[in-house]
C-alpha cells in the first residue's frame, strides 16, 4: 500500500525530468570592461572575475524578486551543495537587474537568506553598466518586472557561453555544468 502510493505520488516529478523545458544555445560573449560592486562593497572587474580555468555560472536576479529569482537561487544553492560534496568549488555570479534598490547590504542579506556559501557573488553597479552587461549577455531586461529565467555557463575550454533559457531541474543544471568542466 505504502509503496503503491509513493509510485502514484512521484511519477510527475520523474516524468518532468525527462522532457527538457529549457532552451540551450552556445554563444560567444564579449564581456564588457566594467567594474561592478559585490556584496561586500568591493569593486570587481567583471571580465577578470569571469575568466579562469573552471566554469563560471551567471544569472540575473534582484533582491526583492518573487517567482523566478527564488527558483534560480535555489538552483544555485543546490549546484553549490552537490559540487561541494564532490570536493569541487563552483563559481557562481548573480548580477542584479534592480541596481536602484540593490545596495551591497541588500545583496549580502539576500545571500544570507539563501544560506549561500562562499563562491557565490552577487553584483550591483550603475544602471548604465548593468544595462551594458545584460546586453552583452543577450539578457537585456528593460524592466525587472518582465524578466525571465536564464543561466549562462562559461566553458573554460574555449571561453564560449552555454545559454540556458528556462527552468532546469537540479539534475539538468548539474549535467550542463559538468559538460563544460575540465575535471569531472
Amino acid at each position, binding site marked *: 500500500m505504502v509503496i503503491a502510493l509513493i509510485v502514484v505520488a512521484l511519477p510527475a516529478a520523474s516524468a518532468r525530468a525527462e522532457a527538457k523545458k529549457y532552451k540551450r544555445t552556445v554563444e560567444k560573449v564579449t564581456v564588457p570592461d566594467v567594474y561592478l560592486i559585490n556584496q561586500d562593497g568591493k569593486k570587481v572587474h567583471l571580465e577578470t572575475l569571469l575568466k579562469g580555468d573552471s566554469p563560471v555560472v551567471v544569472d540575473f536576479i534582484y533582491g526583492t524578486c518573487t517567482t523566478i529569482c527564488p527558483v534560480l537561487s535555489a538552483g544555485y544553492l543546490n549546484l553549490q551543495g552537490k559540487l561541494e560534496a564532490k570536493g569541487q568549488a563552483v563559481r557562481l555570479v548573480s548580477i542584479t537587474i534592480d541596481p*536602484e*534598490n540593490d545596495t551591497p547590504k541588500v545583496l549580502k542579506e539576500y545571500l544570507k537568506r539563501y544560506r549561500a556559501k562562499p563562491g557565490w557573488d552577487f553584483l550591483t553597479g550603475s544602471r548604465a553598466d548593468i544595462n551594458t552587461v545584460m546586453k552583452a549577455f543577450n539578457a537585456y531586461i528593460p524592466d525587472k518586472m518582465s524578466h525571465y529565467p536564464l543561466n549562462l555557463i562559461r566553458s573554460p575550454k574555449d571561453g564560449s557561453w552555454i545559454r540556458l533559457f528556462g527552468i532546469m531541474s537540479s539534475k539538468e543544471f548539474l549535467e550542463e555544468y559538468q559538460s563544460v568542466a575540465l575535471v569531472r
Partner: protein
Amino acid sequence: MNRKRLTALPLQLLLVCLTMVLSLSITGFAATSPPVSDTAKTERLRLGERMYRDGILPSGASMPAFIRGDVEVDSSAFSCSSCHLRGGLGSYEGGVVTPPTTGNKLYQSYRRPPSLDDTHDRSGRFIYAKTVVERPPYTRNTLATALRFGTDPAGQVFNDVMPRYPLSDSDMAIMIEYLESLSEQPSPGASKSEFRFATIITEDVSKEERQEMLLPLQNFIDHTNQQMNMYNDFIKFGYSPTIEMKYAFHRASLDIWELKGPPETWQNQLAAYADAQPVFAVLGGISNGDWRPIHDFCEARRLPCLYPITDFPVISETGWYTYYFNKGYAQEGEATARYLNRLATVTAGTPILQIVQDSPAGKALAAGFDTAWKELGRPAVTTMILPADTLRNSKKMAKILTKRPPGVLLLWADAALLPLLPELTARLAAPGMAFVSSSYLGDKTATISENVRKKVFITFPYRLTPFVGSKDGGFDAKVPILATAKDFGDRRIVSRSTTMLKQATTRGLNLLYDNLYRDHLLDIMSMQMDLTVRDYERFSFGPGQRYISKGCYIIQLGPGKEPALLPRSEWVIQ
C-alpha cells in the same frame, strides 16, 4: 519504474513522502475536517499567517518545501506570500502568473479565456509559466493534495516554480484555515459603489501648503464622482457595461483628518477619526514634523497611506502600509556617504567632520549619512551637534575648524550658515570639500558665494534631466521642463500630490476590480514597472520596497545669479 527513478530522488524527499503517506493512510485525509484544537481561532490564524508570510511552521521550525521536483528549499526565503502576495490575490511577474490562494477564489471553479501564450515555444522563447485554463473548485481535501503534491482537483500538475509542501495534518489544517480567512471580507472603507479616503494634515502646515495639497485631491474626488454620474447615465440609457467598466467606477469621498497638539496625542486623534468613519486608504497627507506617529498608526490599523509629503519618513525595512516618495533628508545624507566612498581623493586618513544643526532636519541628514557610511564599512566620522547660534558665530566656528582642519566638511545646517561658507571652506585641508543639503538650505541654495562654489557640493533629490510633460505631472505639455536654480526650496506639493493620485489610481485602485482589499492595493502597487515622473528621475517598485524614488544627485553650482545645476554624480550612486 522504477527502481532507478526512485533511487535518483533524494533520500530526504522519499522519507518525507513516506512519512506523509503513512500518516495519510492511518488518519485518512484529516485535512477534510481540521483536527480539534485547543488553540483559539485567532492564535491559529496568527500561526497560519506566519506560515504564509514567513515560512515558519507552528513549531517554530522553517517550513520544508521542494521545487523543480527535487530541490529542497527553505521556506523562510521562499514563503507563500513572496509570490501570492500578502492579500493572496496572486501576481504577475517575470512571465509567471501566480494565481490567487484565498479561500474565496479557491473554492470556486476557475476558467480563463484562452491566450496566445498557451503554447510551449513562441518566437524562439519558451513560455515557461502560465495558469491552467480551467479547474474545478477545490475542497479542503484537494487543496491539501495540491499543496503536498502539486496537482489541482483535475489532476493537472503545477508549474515547477510552485513548491510542494510536505505538511503534517495539523499544520495543513492551520494553513488551510488561514487561506480561507485571507481577504475574506472587503476592507473597511470600500464597497462595490464607493471608496472612502482620508488625508492627514498637521497644524504646523501653512495655509498655502495645505491648499496646494488639497486642491489636486479635491479635484480628483470631484472628477471621480462626475465619472460615476456619467456611468449611471450610460446605464440609464440602456447601454450594457463591459466587465471592466463594472469595476472601474466608484463614488469617492475624502475626509480631512486634522491633527492638533503634541505628536504623542496624534494616534488617539487618528483612532477617533478612523473609528467614526473608516476609510480604505489615506491619500497623501502633509506634515512638517516627524511622520512616525502617523506611520505607526497606519501599521497598527493595516491602513495604506500613499505618498505623504514629508521630509521625515520612518526609515524601516519592515514597514508595510506607507508608501513614501523617498527617505527624505536621510536619503540626502546617504547619497553623500556613497559619493564620498568612491572618491579616490578621500582616503581612510582623510579627516571628515560632520557639523549638525541641532534640529530634526540636521539630525535626519546626519543619521542618513552615518547609516550609509557604516554600511560601506567606514569608521564613524567626527560629529558635532551644535545649536543654531553657535553655527552663526564665525569665531566659534573658526576655532572648531582650526583645531583639526577637516578635509571634508559636512554641514547639515540651514541657510543662516551660508554667509560663513567662504571662511569655513578656506580652513579645509585637502581635498577641501564641503557638503550641504539643498532641501535644508531651501531657495537660498542659489546664493552660495561664487568664489566657493568649486568647493561646495550640494545634495539634490529631484530630477535634473528634462521632463516632457506639464508642471502638474501630466504628459500633455510640449516643452521639456528643466530643473533650474529657481527650483531650490520648492516642495513640489502640487506636482507630487498629482503624481500620488496617478499612482494610487491608475496603478492601484483601477486594477482592484472586485478585490477590495487594502493589502491587495499595496500588493499590486508593488508589482509595477518602473516609471518616469515629473519630480524624480525614476520610480521603481518591488515587493516590500516602500521608498519609491531611490536617487539623489550630488551637484555643484555654475557661475552667475541664476547658476546652472551641474551634476557631479549619477541619479543613484552605488
